[in-house]
């Protein structure tokens, strides 16, 4: 468990360094983001992220998509579809953390 936690920390730090963004959101914010992911993203993508009116967001659905595209989709939405822009409610750092959380299958 401890080692896992450590790996996660290193991963997040590396991800933050690579993307040039700030450190990951603090634990309170992470909990808020996961709640939002489950309940608000979940109303279109399913609480188990298996899809609904919106596409599924399971790790295998995201593996071929670049993080840049996914972060932009979260922040700016996808015009012509019901996917709304979440900028204003989510920072870039929040969006990046959420994408990585989805890639890890966190909360599933």
């Amino acid at each position, binding site marked *: 468990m401890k080692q896992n936690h450590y790996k996660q920390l290193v991963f997040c730090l590396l991800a933050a360094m690579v993307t040039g963004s700030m450190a990951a959101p603090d634990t309170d914010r992470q909990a808020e983001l996961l709640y939002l992911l*489950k*309940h*608000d993203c*979940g*109303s*279109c993508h*399913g*609480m*188990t992220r*298996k*899809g*609904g*009116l919106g596409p599924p967001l399971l790790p295998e659905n995201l593996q071929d998509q670049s993080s840049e595209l996914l972060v932009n989709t979260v922040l700016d*939405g996808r015009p*012509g579809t*019901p996917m*709304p*822009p*979440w900028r204003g*409610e989510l920072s870039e750092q929040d969006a990046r953390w959420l994408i990585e959380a989805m890639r890890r299958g966190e909360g599933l």
Partner: protein
Amino acid sequence: MKTHKGSVPFFRKHCGEVMPYRRKRVLTPYVPYVPYLLLALLLTAMSLATYAACPVRGTGDLGIVIERASGSVLVVDTTARKRLARIEGLGDLSHASVVFSRDERYAYVFGRDGGLSKIDLLCGRLDKRVLQAGNSIVGAISQDGSLVAVSNYTPGGVKVFAADSLQLVADLPARDKAGHSSKVVGLVDAPGNKFVYSLYDLGELRIADLSDPAAPVVTTFTDIGRLPYDGLITPDGRNYIAGLFGEDGLALLDLWHPDEGVQRILDGYGRGEEKLPVYKMPHLEGWAVAGRNVFIPAVGHHEVLVVDRYSWKEVARIPVHGQPVFVVARPDGRQVWVNFAHPLNDTVQVIDTQSMQVVHSMQPGDGVLHMEFAPRGEFVWLSVRDIDQVQVYDTESFERIATLEAEKPSGIFFTARAHRTGL
């Protein structure tokens, strides 16, 4: 005392002689039957135990509350305002909906994971369950109560089941001529054992006639508008309306005159105004009507639209707190209650349908997801997801009259829906 004294010799005289006679002659021959007698007693006890689980009572004041995150539902008593039973193991219930059998004993719960569960309200238990598709959204029960239809996202289409056994009766794929599949939304029942639904990805509307379940007849209307997201049918079963996400307007079909085709109403209602991001799709459920006026949520605007039910022209737009999700009329049509999309979903507003103004606002808590009125409208139940509560309000005084605990409650459905077309 005299009568008592007198009764003793009377007893001795008549019964004192009879009893030894009966012991010898009457009871002894029954001894071989004692095991059978015990078995009968046991069976009676068992049936009494069953009776305790399934009380003799009506189900007309019962309902179902969906607990969306835990895959469970509550059976509730709306008269006593309490929980009667909790039924678990119903799968992914995000966006679950419910219809009722015509005897109001059974509830059919449609889950997100394609699960169709038949709940026995009287006994408070799961009666049957099938996993009928990968991903589904909504269902309907036929006019005669014999068929339950489920609309699916993956694979797109409608599946029809026998209401009693949940055996598959018909499978209606949602493909166009080129073979493109679509998610199905806005499925409702219509007179003549028909189901009406819209195809989200293809912009089509379909009528499936199940009057002969072995040979369903499907009629298709194409180009009804971009991205229909939900649909409703008027209580008389005459008009079907699909809300469009891809454009400002609604698609209307007169089921008495399907040959006249689908007509566009409220075309371009948001024209010239920037559409706001939609954090939750509005729902068209039932028919919020008062006199000539129908109340409909605007998509991407902080407004409730009012349209004339005969001319289908816009009558008014009522500014409200946020983007409406549900716009539901109290059964008498005097009030319309509105809840809102994230992040303004802590508020509920009440519109007076005569002045067409918001007359009451309240904050029941974060995540107000659904509202269900008593059949005659004297109270309303609200689900407040983030504080794990169902709150009951008096619709005249707006006072809260009860609070029930529920885990992440979403949809609330009362059995009176059993007798209404389109619910």
